[in-house]
């Protein structure tokens, strides 16, 4: 176990990302592929599987101290569920955790999700590399 010396400006940090399905939606093929792609990119993935509630997601994200939450939604309930996740994150003073999403989300809904604070939305056909790139590079800006 190496302790970083004081000279190093920022100690080594591996991104930690919580990846889950949310709501009543049993389609987990995509979310598993994303979890594996992130793992293969050297990221620590807390994988929560199916049927999570917004409260379960947010409380888990706080305890796991993740850098980001990735939610897969194919149930058409994305507006309600993302809104609730963002509300609970604020309530827990954890709205510095970046939220991104994927799944069947109509393009006209994406600006609304971004206004809620969702950082990125990946729709079907997105290369896995784009999601990996977002997590590895896109999260750095939050400092």
């Amino acid at each position: 176990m190496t302790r970083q010396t004081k000279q190093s400006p920022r100690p080594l940090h591996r991104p930690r990302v919580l990846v889950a399905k949310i709501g009543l939606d049993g389609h987990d093929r995509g979310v598993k592929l994303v979890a594996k792609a992130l793992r293969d990119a050297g990221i620590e993935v807390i994988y929560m599987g199916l049927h999570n509630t917004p409260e379960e997601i947010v409380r888990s994200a706080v305890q796991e101290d993740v850098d980001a939450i990735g939610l897969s939604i194919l149930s058409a309930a994305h507006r309600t569920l993302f809104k609730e996740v963002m509300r609970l994150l604020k309530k827990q003073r954890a709205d510095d955790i970046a939220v991104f999403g994927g799944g069947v989300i109509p393009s006209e809904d994406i600006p609304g999700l971004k206004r809620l604070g969702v950082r990125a939305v990946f729709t079907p056909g997105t290369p896995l590399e784009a999601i990996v790139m977002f997590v590895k590079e896109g999260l750095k800006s939050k400092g």
Partner: protein
Amino acid sequence: MSFPVRQIRNGDFRAAAKLITAIERGDPSAVPILKALAPYTGRAQVIGITGPVGAGKSSLINELTTGYRHLRRRVGILAVDPTSPVTGGAILGDRIRMRDHLTDPGVFIRSLAARGAPGGLPVLVLAEALHVLDALGMDVIFIETIGIGQDQTAVASIARTTAVVVNPTLGDEVQLLKAGFMEIADIFVVNKADLPGADRMALQLAELSDAVNPAPVFKTSALKHEGLDELIKGLNDIGKKTRR
């Protein structure tokens, strides 16, 4: 008393989680906070849960947590999963088995990646994270190891009580005689006891425990919620004996 110290003493999960991250990173800012928390530690009952891949360690912890919550004890869980030797990434999937407690304010669950630690157990990180959960007010703290092979025994060096969890299909009595993780058990658990062979396995372990180490044997089925009250009583009895 510094700000994070006060927050953790007041039971703030977010502050505790941030401190565990700092510990994992080897961030020197964690050191003075841990020192300041030291007087508030040493109170929790620390239980190591170890055993082979798929023995049902996480599911058993989920069930035990239900039992301890009924006894109004607060529960902390530190669950380790392996880090990829190829990429450094990890899938931390123990929380998925602990679904019954995800929103309980009396339960704190943290998944940790092994990050190349010898034997798959980041002992120094766990020892410090234990102090954090202890100071946070957790009464019982579980350390769940990665699924282990025969010679991984480090958990016994940080847990006051070590439960070795096996299944009815582990193997014959020669497997049980071999040196290694069977020797560190303070308590044996035959989980998945709803499967055939559980009684035979329990009997073989009981014979072994007479010879090597007087460890009691319990049969549980996390799936059928059976044997948990007896196991909790056994853990508490052992905990009293091993308490420093």
